[in-house]
């Protein structure tokens, strides 16, 4: 919380170095590779020129190798394996392992539960998006005006973003719960007792309540992104507009807001990816069933429940392959929509 909020203060290049960012996790592996590199990069007199040329051309790949192995083993292989498993009828336990082709995909696309969850995700996404592009932008604009205590406000307003969704969920359980929640007693004390209800098991209010909790956690992202977008806008442009007689309001909408379109793009795509993966907050607040009556069920909880069964890990109704097929489907849809979003939003961006 130092006091120098210089314009470039949020750029990574000006941040002082952190403690312990560079550790020595893999010294043996590194040394081994170093020795090989050493022997490869020295222009040995007797060595054939072609070998030296190969090192020159492909030597850099040694640096990529350890990370590549990690990436292939723990991300690419599981993805390929997911696609493979989605063509079978395997339940996760038991010997049943028959090829069923696209049957799992067909079943997912014709099940109302899948659409209900997807619809909840969509509502979730739109609500959070509106929240971030209004309240987040408004707060970022206020912070960008560099009021006194700007550092303090910024520190406080980013705080929820670094909290886990589990912690966030419990923080809001303390407000919303019908047992220990503070909201209902508060409403009764100020004479609005008729509004009190069990927010998280009310069919109308459960989804909005869950969305608000997630919005509280995500607010920091929109402030961060818009604030750094605002800081990148040259002051001269605004001054020029003001000299030309534009009001503050006109300057914002005609000059500043169009220049924020890259921030708009980043935030929209980031929110889309975050919200279609949403799981934790629903799990904590309304449980893996998406209570009440599936009103808060999202794709994340649906896949989880399908994979392991309603009764918890490895129960009888677990359907691993079907769950994996759903997750493949979600990935394909997410990938397509992300690309579409990026293409559409980039088109309307203006050069600064």
């Amino acid at each position, binding site marked *: 919380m130092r006091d120098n909020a210089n314009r470039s*203060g*949020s*750029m*990574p290049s000006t*941040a002082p*170095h*952190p403690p312990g*960012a*560079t550790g020595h*996790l*893999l010294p043996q592996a590194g040394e081994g590779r*170093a020795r090989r590199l050493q022997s490869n*990069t020295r222009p040995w007199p007797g060595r054939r020129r072609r070998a030296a040329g190969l090192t020159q051309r*492909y030597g*850099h*790949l*040694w*640096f*990529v190798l*350890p990370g590549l192995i*990690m*990436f292939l*083993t*723990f991300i690419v292989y*599981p*993805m390929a394996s*997911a696609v493979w498993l989605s063509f079978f009828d395997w339940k996760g336990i038991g010997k049943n392992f028959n090829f069923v082709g696209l049957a799992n995909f067909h079943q997912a696309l014709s099940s109302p539960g899948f659409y209900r969850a997807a619809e909840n995700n969509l509502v979730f996404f739109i609500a959070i998006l509106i929240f971030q592009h209004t309240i987040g932008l408004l*707060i970022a604009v*206020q912070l960008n005006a560099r*009021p006194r205590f700007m550092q303090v406000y910024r520190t406080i*307003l*980013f*705080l929820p973003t*670094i909290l*886990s969704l*589990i*912690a966030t969920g*419990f*923080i809001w359980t*303390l407000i919303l719960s019908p047992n220990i929640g*503070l909201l209902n007693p*508060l409403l009764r004390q100020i004479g609005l007792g008729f509004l009190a209800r069990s927010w998280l098991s009310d069919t109308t209010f459960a989804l909005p309540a869950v969305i608000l909790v997630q919005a*509280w956690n995500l*607010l*920091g*992202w929109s402030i*961060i*992104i818009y604030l750094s977008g605002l800081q990148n806008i040259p002051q001269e442009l605004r001054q020029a507009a003001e000299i030309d007689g534009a009001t503050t309001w006109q300057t914002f909408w005609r000059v500043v807001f169009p220049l924020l379109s890259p921030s708009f793009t980043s935030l929209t795509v*980031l929110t889309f990816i975050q919200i279609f993966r949403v799981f*934790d907050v629903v*799990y904590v607040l309304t449980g893996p069933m998406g209570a009440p009556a599936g009103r808060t069920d999202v*794709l*994340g909880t649906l896949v989880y429940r399908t994979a*392991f069964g309603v009764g918890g*890990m490895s129960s009888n109704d677990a359907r691993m392959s079907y769950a*994996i097929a759903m*997750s*493949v489907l*979600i*990935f394909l849809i997410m990938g397509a929509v992300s690309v579409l979003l990026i293409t559409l939003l980039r088109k309307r961006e203006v050069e600064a």
Partner: protein
Amino acid sequence: MSTLAAPRRQTSRRRSQRTAAIARHALLILASLVVLVPIGYTIIASFKDVPEFFGNPFGLPHTWQWQNYVRAWTEARIAVTLPNSIIVTTLAVTGSTVLSALIAYGICRREKPFAMALYVFFVSGMLVPVQMIVLPLFLLLKAIGLFGTLFALVFPYTALGLPLGVLILTPLVAALPRDLSEAARIDGANEWQIFWRVILPLMRPGLASVAILNGVWMWNEFFIPLIISVKSSTQTLPVGIMSFVGVYSTEWGLVFASVVVSAAPVVVAYLFMTRQFVAGLTAGALKG
């Protein structure tokens, strides 16, 4: 800017500026309260005993139950889950930061074979939905015998931290002047020495961003350990809290004490290094 305006307009302008400043502070204070009040009440709640949750919902505890924290240590198994979280996050942050720095150095020159392809390959890993890989990952870890150890989390976290690391670090390395490594090469340094002694120190701000961004999600991650850390001895904090809640759903004081303990390390680190966190989060958010 008021100095530019004509003197006649100055007073009214100054007055409207003051009104704007007051409105601005009112808004920011309101927003700060929306953040701080729930957090404050959570801390207060962690010192209450169960009857006070119902009898005295708004006030401070009549007697501060430090006992909640002592009991949470054993009964909510923080004694197990806190060290687990620390070990997993430390190893995975270190691993993903170092490995992505290596990759970034390896592919920083576009003209080298495969450099661009590898960059795109790693970065597109950002789009991988955890939901899709976690189930096959569960099967893979069982097959290779890592299941039931902390490495069942460390390795996947490390791999999942790479896309962001490559995304942030590659442009940084590429922007370093080539003369630096050329000079070191002429002085007889090999590629490994150049990386370790010349390139890595220059990447520090970027490494900090990568470590912070990955560290925060790794510490907070819930979905992966929920499925992979089935053994209670390998659970991390978020999963530990949830499984405790399932068993003792009425011990609210202990639940909130656990929540405070799980959030405290990240919050303290954040308060001490706010600027680095903000810089790191900005770098990640804009590129993500």
